Structures are given as C-alpha cells and as structure tokens.
C-alpha cells in the first residue's frame, strides 16, 4: 500500500470491554512499532516487531495489553478489560529495516467511556 494503514480510525468502547486495533504496514517493511499518544503528550513506546525475532514488549503498560504480528504483515494490538486511562491515540509505524526512518499511520483514537 501507499502508507501505513490503521483501523478503525476511531473507536469508542465501554469500560471493561476488549478492543482490537489493526495495523497494515507498508509492504516489505520488516520493522513495526506501536506507540501510544495521550492528549497533548508525546509518544509512548509500546512494542516493536522486527522480522521473525522475538518482539520487544518492554513498553506494554500492563498485562491487559498484547500485540501480535504474523510474519512481516498485519499487526493487531489488543487491550483487554479497557480502562478510562487507556483513552489515547494508538499509532503504528513501520520501517524497511531498523536502520532507516519509520513511517507512521494516522492512528486509532480510542475513547473508553
């Protein structure tokens, strides 16, 4: 595709529900990142995938958060039992390799009510 695609663009969910966010990276990009951006704040690292290597999950804030990636394609970020503090924009980025620039999608705005 032309760029990193994320879906849905907006998600409103009730507290306690599970949500699944999707990221389609640029074709051929081996590196994929998930970040969280709270309103008016910087980007908070969540998880990094590089090819078939074990992902770096060091940024996941709790065990309610998990992410998967199949090979070098789609990634899903799952948040279980959502809380109000999970409300944020979740950004996905991909890069051809670790050594070059990362391109971001437009994000999924998650609102937990």
């Amino acid at each position: 595709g032309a760029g990193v695609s994320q879906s849905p663009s907006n998600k409103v969910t009730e507290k306690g529900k599970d949500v699944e966010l999707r990221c389609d990276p640029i074709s051929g990009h081996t590196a994929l990142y998930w970040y969280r951006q709270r309103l008016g704040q910087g980007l908070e690292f969540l998880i990094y995938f590089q090819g078939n290597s074990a992902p770096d999950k060091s940024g996941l804030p709790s065990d309610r958060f998990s992410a998967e990636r199949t090979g070098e394609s789609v990634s899903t970020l799952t948040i279980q039992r959502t809380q109000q503090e999970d409300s944020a924009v979740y950004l996905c980025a991909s890069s051809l390799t670790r050594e070059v620039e990362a391109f971001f999608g437009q994000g999924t705005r998650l609102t937990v009510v």
Partner: protein
Amino acid sequence: QQQVKQSPQSLIVQKGGISIINCAYENTAFDYFPWYQQFPGKGPALLIAIRPDVSEKKEGRFTISFNKSAKQFSLHIMDSQPGDSATYFCAARSVSQFYFGTGTSLTVIP
C-alpha cells in the same frame, strides 16, 4: 524518565521568522535522530533526520544542528510560514525503539 528532553513546549513566531526547537539526550548509544511534524488528527510525518557523525543537515527551510559532545540537537525552520504551524517531535533511536520528546506546538502568525 524522559530519555529525550525537548523545549520549548510551545512557540509563537511571526511569519518569515526563524523557529528553533531544542532537544537533549543522555544515552550515547542513540544512533539516529529524526524530527517529526504532526498536524491535528494526523500521524507524525518524518521531516528531517541526522546521524551523529554529521554536525548539520539542511533540507530546504529545515536544518538540524547536532552537537555530539553536548548531546544536543536542534531544529531550525527558516522563513517560517503559517503552514508550518504544527506539533514537532524530536526523537532518538536505540536498538529497538524510538524515544520521543514531549513535543513543541509551533504557531506561525501571519
């Protein structure tokens, strides 16, 4: 702990002026320093980037100045335009992630 410290938090510049945003870091293992521009409702877009073996990089009106010994780098926007009004993030890359500054909201007044 903030790995990359960015200032100022907000900046107002007259059209035609120079916008300067500064960042500082501690980890000498960082090997790549990009700047991203973000408009409301959009994801960050890469603006310009530099590697630590270079002291300056210029692309059009945008220049990165890099001071390796001081562990500081800055973005200069020359001849600032209202269309440059956005939030700017500096970042630094380590092994498996980018560390971002907290962002600078730039407003260019016509």
